[in-house]
């Protein structure tokens, strides 16, 4: 028997859903698309993804708010307090310059996460543009664009990022974003192209053409919005790789310039003293690992939630 979402909600006294019950009023049309409602319900059912999502949000909130409320100046050098062990005043201890690690790990997280999202976004925008043009135009244009992509696929991601940074010279937020996205948009372009080609054959695309919709309207209205689900998943699939890439670049000394720091460069600072003051390397590393793990779990949950073919059994 098929159980409607409403019935299901009535049955389970789940507090997370109690806010939605008013939509079940008889006769009144349900206001919002149940596509997203269904997706959210499916996502909520995946416990791992829910936990990962909660931790992810908590981590982001931590990075945003801790530096605001922290009594310590993150860049204030005070050698008297160098390498303090964790205590009540400094829950994560201090680093070689006596700076509070709790504050700095939050600040570093801001940079790491911001670079991660910005680079992922750049990857998706480039991939979406390239892939949708290739898939939509089709024919020899598609062929040429895809063969070009095949050639680019040979470029190794990290060495290419390093070379880009070396050519640009200065390392700041935006050059970092460029370096991380320049050699990693190929996969998303392919995903989008595949999606567009599949969607292009849909009857409603032909129906839209049959009522005189121009090509850009067909593309913007009927094709790209339908790739949205795949793109959201792609964001969270791309994110761990990008964050790890940033951490790696920072770790080998190509990262953000001091006194700003990202998790990668903090870990690099801690590497020299990992025997005596393990917490200095451990804390940013755990942060990176947590973020990457969460992003993977979220991607997994989203894939199940947004794929319309995953129906409840």
């Amino acid at each position, binding site marked *: 028997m098929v159980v409607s979402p409403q019935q299901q909600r009535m049955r389970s006294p789940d507090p997370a859903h109690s806010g939605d019950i008013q939509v079940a009023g008889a006769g009144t049309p349900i*206001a919002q698309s149940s*596509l997203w409602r269904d997706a959210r319900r499916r996502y909520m059912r995946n416990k791992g993804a829910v936990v990962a999502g909660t931790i992810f949000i908590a981590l982001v909130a931590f990075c945003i708010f801790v530096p605001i409320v922290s009594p310590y100046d993150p860049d204030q050098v005070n050698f008297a307090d160098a390498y303090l062990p964790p205590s009540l005043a400094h829950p994560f201890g201090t680093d070689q310059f006596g700076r509070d690690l709790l504050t700095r790990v939050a600040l570093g997280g801001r940079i790491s996460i911001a670079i991660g999202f910005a680079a992922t976004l750049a990857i998706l925008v480039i991939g979406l543009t390239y892939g949708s043009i290739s898939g939509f135009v089709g024919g020899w244009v598609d062929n040429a664009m895809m063969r070009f992509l095949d050639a680019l696929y040979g470029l190794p991601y990290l060495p290419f990022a390093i070379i880009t940074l070396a050519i640009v010279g200065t390392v700041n937020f935006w050059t970092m974003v460029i370096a991380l996205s320049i050699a990693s948009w190929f996969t998303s372009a392919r995903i989008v192209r595949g999606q567009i080609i599949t969607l292009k054959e849909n009857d409603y695309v032909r129906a839209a053409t049959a009522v005189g919709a121009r090509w850009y309207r067909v593309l913007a209205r009927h094709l790209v919005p*339908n790739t949205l689900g795949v793109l959201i998943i792609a964001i969270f699939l791309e994110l761990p790789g990008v964050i790890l890439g940033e951490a790696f670049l920072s770790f080998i000394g190509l990262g953000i310039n001091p006194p700003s720091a990202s998790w990668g460069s903090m870990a690099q600072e801690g590497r020299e003293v990992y025997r005596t003051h393990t917490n200095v390397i451990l804390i940013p590393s755990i942060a990176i690992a947590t973020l990457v793990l969460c992003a993977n779990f979220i991607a997994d949950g989203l894939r199940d939630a947004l794929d319309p073919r995953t129906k409840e059994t």
Partner: protein
Amino acid sequence: MALLEVDNLKTHFFTREGVVRAVDGVSFTVEPGKTLGIVGESGCGKSVTALSIMSLLPQPPAKIVDGSVTFEGFDLAKLSERHLEDVRGKEIAMIFQDPMTSLNPTLKIGTQIMETMERHLGLDRKQAKKRAIELLEEVHIPNAANRLSDYPHRFSGGMRQRVMIAIAISCNPKLLIADEPTTALDVTVQAGILDLLDELQEEHEMAMILITHDMGVVAEAADDIVVMYAGQIVEQAPSLELFDHPEHPYTEALLGALPQIEGEGIRAGRLTAIPGRPPDLADPPTACRFAPRCPFSDREDSCAKEMPQLRELRTGHWVRSAHPASERAKTPLGAST
């Protein structure tokens, strides 16, 4: 003057297996306000004909290699894509076979109806919305004003086809092409949709091309009927004439395959099936394409060697056969008459 004049249309598909002659020299005219029915089995070129008129076929592989499609004096086959976009939806509209997939699942019904009117008629949001409600009422969707903000998955197949029809008639087209509009629907809904099309046609003074493989559907709705087989027209006549005096053996066979309620003068017993399969259109026979399945053709006949031409047996009744019913002496076994 005829509204639409299709003359010797040849649409071929250029594939790796060779040239498929999906439409091979089709000519017909559609008069303003009249309905032309195109019947034939799957793969006989009905839909390709319709899509050729609208230039909606993907090129390549498809190509209109010969012939013209004249709509109000313009040859659509030679019009640029930009001009065609202005014709599609405004002058000629089309509804498709499967209403379940013809609406974009991510857009609200209202948006999809209004889109066309904003595009062609230059209406603003408010006017378009008002008109969209009127249109939904016109296609008999209850509670129209509220349903505008619904997504397609909340509509049944029949209702979706009604929405598709609303979109198609939104700009008062002069010609509506209905490509198997009822095939995906069950019989009661089918009747409703046909009644609706009939009603709207009268109201909007539209001409209509009704494509179907269902003889019952054309019998009800069409003024003139074109019977297609293997990319060619095999018989063309006014509706009543065709049903009363079918001439081509293929038309006879199609009618023989139609279930009928028992009554006076109506064949009793089992339905007859047509033996064999239609020819491969990548390599069609140079002779009559129906000859291998025709109960009246044998090897000595002229029609086994060369293609019979369309000829006018009676006024308005065209047949492509060497053995039309009215010229036959004997009735062989297995025929339906």
